[in-house]
């Protein structure tokens, strides 16, 4: 009787071990991209973009630079923000948040018809202005930027044993076009560690 019970339990346990896992439906749910925290060694997550942007925006708004603008809103153009990381990243993930914040503040607006190398971010707006000028004969007034925003995103990886310290540094400068001087500069870093597992299969 006892042997039979042990045998039954053994067969049951073996069946459980070798049985294919029950098919589990993938669950998909919406999350708040600003709330969900995902830390990845090879990517900058939305929450990290948000964190870097928040620090830079707070730094800019807390400085006296915006208070010194004579006739707000001033006009800002986005210059080169260099990606010095090993990743393919969309710089807009950072600059757009800064643009939205500055727009909300009412101190600085961003031009979409004046861009780096003469390229307009919104070519249709530029064409429409030119067409309107051609048809109406009236000279359209495109406001030239008072400020430009430029910067760099750097990546550094320092390894010690199994642990790697990954640091992304965000550097931004706001330049006064008339004087050519950087009237605001800031640097913020996001660091994370990645640890390699001891055993790999």
């Amino acid at each position, binding site marked *: 009787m006892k042997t039979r019970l042990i045998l039954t339990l053994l067969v049951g346990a073996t069946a459980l071990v070798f049985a294919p896992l029950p098919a589990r439906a993938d669950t998909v749910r919406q999350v*708040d*991209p*600003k*709330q969900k*925290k995902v830390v990845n060694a090879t990517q900058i997550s939305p*929450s990290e973009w*948000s*964190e870097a*942007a*928040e620090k830079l*925006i*707070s730094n800019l*708004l*807390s*400085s*006296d*630079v*915006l*208070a010194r603008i004579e006739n707000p809103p001033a006009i800002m153009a986005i210059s080169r923000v260099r990606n010095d990381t090993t990743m393919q990243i969309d710089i807009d993930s950072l600059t*757009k*948040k800064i643009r*939205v*914040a*500055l727009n*909300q*503040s*009412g*101190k600085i607006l961003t031009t979409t018809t004046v861009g780096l190398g003469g390229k307009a971010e919104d070519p249709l707006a530029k064409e429409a202005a030119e067409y309107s000028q051609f048809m109406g004969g009236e000279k359209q007034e495109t406001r030239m930027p008072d400020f430009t925003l430029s910067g760099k995103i750097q990546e550094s990886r320092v390894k010690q044993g199994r642990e790697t310290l990954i640091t992304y540094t965000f550097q931004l400068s706001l330049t006064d076009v008339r004087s050519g001087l950087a009237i605001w500069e800031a640097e913020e870093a996001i660091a994370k560690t990645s640890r390699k597992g001891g055993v790999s299969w």
Partner: protein
Amino acid sequence: MKKSLILALAAGAALISGCSTVNSIESTSPQTRAAYVPDRRLVFDGWLAESIEVSGIAQTYVSGDLLKIEMKVRNLHRHYKDYRYRVEWIGKDGMAIPSPIDGWKTFHLEGREETHISATATSPKAVDFIIKFMLDHE
């Protein structure tokens, strides 16, 4: 015998948990005159309330008309902790003002460490604020 066993266990636990606290030095006659705002606290997580102390919320205006707040927070534990906070800005009409940077942010405090956390409203329409705290479990 029992007492020494408890002490040894406590010391062992402290050693395992990586107990590290922070000492700080400050002026006895500070020159700062912060404008602290009276606050009302809603506590739903008693453990969190005993874990972090928010000792003063100061407010000022920057860039002319943008509300900036700063609070002093202290980790009441003897070991490091990760927390999250979020600031919501409220307009004159009592409605929340969306901001591109209003998500949850993480901060890290060593044992008994006190630090300042600040936030700046991106809109001049912001006249009030709500600060939310939670433990960072992720």
